């Protein structure tokens, strides 16, 4: 009866595209040229929209905004692995995901402009409301997966959170429910190395975030989050596994928040220019662009077309958001319950 090893586990890391845009052919996911072009379009749209939103915030035309610069590959690559019938549970920094799923852009601006109508998710989109309290929505995704399993639906729930989010109790409880009930849910942790000013190493002592899945008896994997092919590939495998009824997966997208936490933040207070510069060299767009060029997909005509379509979409979104009629003040009471309480009815007289 000596000391003996009763369980071993390991964490894998997936890289496909290097910084020169060269893909490891053995690991290449099955994506057609059309798919790749579509991914590229989404990428450009996400980045352009993000840039515009930042500008609108600076001009005081929307409120506090959480940019996604640098995380587009993690967001688009994962979202692209889903079917339309699958469910997405975003946090506050998922505009790339929303863009990839065709969320009306003007509504995103409306939301960040402080208008709930922007997050009245259109009926045809299986996207949950944006969750601001970190970690909490992990449980909603898990509950959604429980509902899917109960109904015998083959839909998968995908939930997005950050490195900081893994510290919250709700992350833990959600992961544990998912493992225990072997649920069709995919956990996407965008490890962008920072939770506002707290660096990844001070958030937790585990070497990777992927290994947190060990605690719940299912697989965790790390991918280069700036490599859209690796991200897509890992997500696709996890989604298919979930759909086959083989349970959850945690995917750690190893990436970087290239700019401030939000427009209310000043990242230069707590991190070095050198770190930012090092990660700028790993910009997921640079790499994807090189790959597309090498593959002969990024013709000048295509780029022009993409730029034009993107600009039009973003311009239109801005216009629509700004021309929306002001919300009715009574709306803030109307939607509390299915119908007004007597007290609310009285209070409504103020409007």
């Amino acid at each position, binding site marked *: 009866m000596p000391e003996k090893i009763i369980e071993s586990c390991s964490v894998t890391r997936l890289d496909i595209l290097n910084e020169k845009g060269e893909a490891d052919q053995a690991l290449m996911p099955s994506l057609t040229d059309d798919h790749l072009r579509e991914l590229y379009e989404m990428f450009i749209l996400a980045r352009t929209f993000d840039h515009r939103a930042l500008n609108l915030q600076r001009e005081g035309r929307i409120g506090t905004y959480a940019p996604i610069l640098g995380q587009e590959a993690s967001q688009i690559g994962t979202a692209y692995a889903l079917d339309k019938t699958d469910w997405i549970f975003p946090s506050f920094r998922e505009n790339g995901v929303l863009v990839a799923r065709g969320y009306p852009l003007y509504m995103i601006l409306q939301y960040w402009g402080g208008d*709930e109508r922007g997050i009245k998710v259109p009926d045809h989109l299986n996207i949950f409301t944006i969750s601001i309290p970190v970690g909490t929505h992990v449980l909603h995704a898990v509950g959604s997966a429980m509902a899917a399993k109960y109904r015998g639906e083959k839909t998968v729930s995908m939930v997005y959170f950050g490195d900081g989010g893994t510290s919250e109790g709700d992350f833990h409880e959600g992961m544990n429910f998912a493992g225990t009930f072997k649920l069709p849910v995919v956990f996407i942790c965008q490890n962008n190395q920072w939770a506002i000013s707290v660096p990844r190493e001070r958030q937790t002592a585990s070497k990777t975030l992927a290994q947190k899945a060990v605690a719940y008896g299912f697989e965790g994997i790390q991918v280069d989050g700036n490599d859209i092919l690796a991200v897509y590939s890992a997500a696709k495998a996890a989604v298919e596994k979930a759909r086959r009824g083989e349970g959850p997966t945690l995917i750690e997208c190893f990436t970087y928040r290239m700019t401030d936490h939000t427009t209310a933040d000043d990242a230069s207070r707590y991190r070095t220019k050198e770190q930012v510069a090092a990660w700028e060299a790993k910009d997921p767009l640079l790499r994807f662009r090189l790959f597309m060029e090498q593959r002969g997909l990024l013709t000048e005509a295509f780029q022009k077309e993409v730029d034009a379509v993107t600009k039009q979409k973003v311009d239109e979104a801005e216009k629509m958001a700004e021309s929306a009629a002001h919300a009715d003040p009574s709306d803030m009471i109307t939607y509390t319950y299915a119908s007004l309480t007597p007290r609310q009815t009285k209070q409504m007289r103020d409007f």
Partner: protein
Amino acid sequence: MAKLNMVQAINLALKEEMQRDKDVIILGEDVGRDGGVFRVTEGLLDVFGAERVIDTPLAESGIVGVSIGMAARGLKPVAEIQFMGFIYPALDQISSHAARLRSRSRGRYTCPLVVRTPYGAGIKAPEHHSESTEALFCHMPGIKVVLPSTPYTAKGLLISAIRDPDPVVFLESARLYRLIKEEVPEGEYTIPLGKARLAQEGKDVTVISWGAMLHRCLQAAAGFSADVIDLMTLNPFDEETIYSSVKKTGRVVIVHEAPKTCGLGAEISASIAEEAMLFLKGPITRVTAYDAVLPLPKLEDYYMPTVERIKKGIEEVLKY
């Protein structure tokens, strides 16, 4: 018609609703094989299977959080929190999400969720097993709070709560669970949320209470001509019934077993002062627990309002 206690009445409500609607699902700690530590869900696992009566890991935020996810996807989860003293880890999910989903999404997502939990002192239980913090949930717009005081109303209210399109915190007096039996019909009947019940009619004083304390109020009011109002729904509460009684009697005693400060009694008193003050003959009186942490069993009888204290409260307002 069978005479049932509250445990049986609630069990019956759950069973009938689950039979009627396959979207109704039960989840919580020990609700399955064990039938719940108070046996409220006894037998349901055998009838409906482990897919509909789900023993969860030990995690209250988890239980409510996944229930919200299920509810948003159209199921009607009935989550059990083993004791009200353990609901606080789930308070963030209740107030930040369950309460707000409809409003946040302007109606795209809703949360037809019931969170059941036993509340209240008087069962000689360990620390945290006797909480009565209903007022916290009444201060959360988007949440309804229901608290029955009899087996018959428990069944009808729970059915309404399950069918309600919005989240309901449903509080069950652990003390009453097996204390009273009364006739509870099988089959569907509902008691509307938001309506109070006149448990006794009179003309000199209005006594307002709910749950276990309602019965002490009835004992205390026995010698008086009193309206005794069983509030039943604590949020939104039935202002009309209260004001019309107060306008008749001009005197009010509000009784609850939660500490006085910021208890629901405060809201009821303040509302009366706003809407019916000119009908009042004297001060509104609250008979409540003390502003102290609920003690362990040796002292709990001193903590809660007694029949004596309630009687004294009634006598005092009758002086005016």
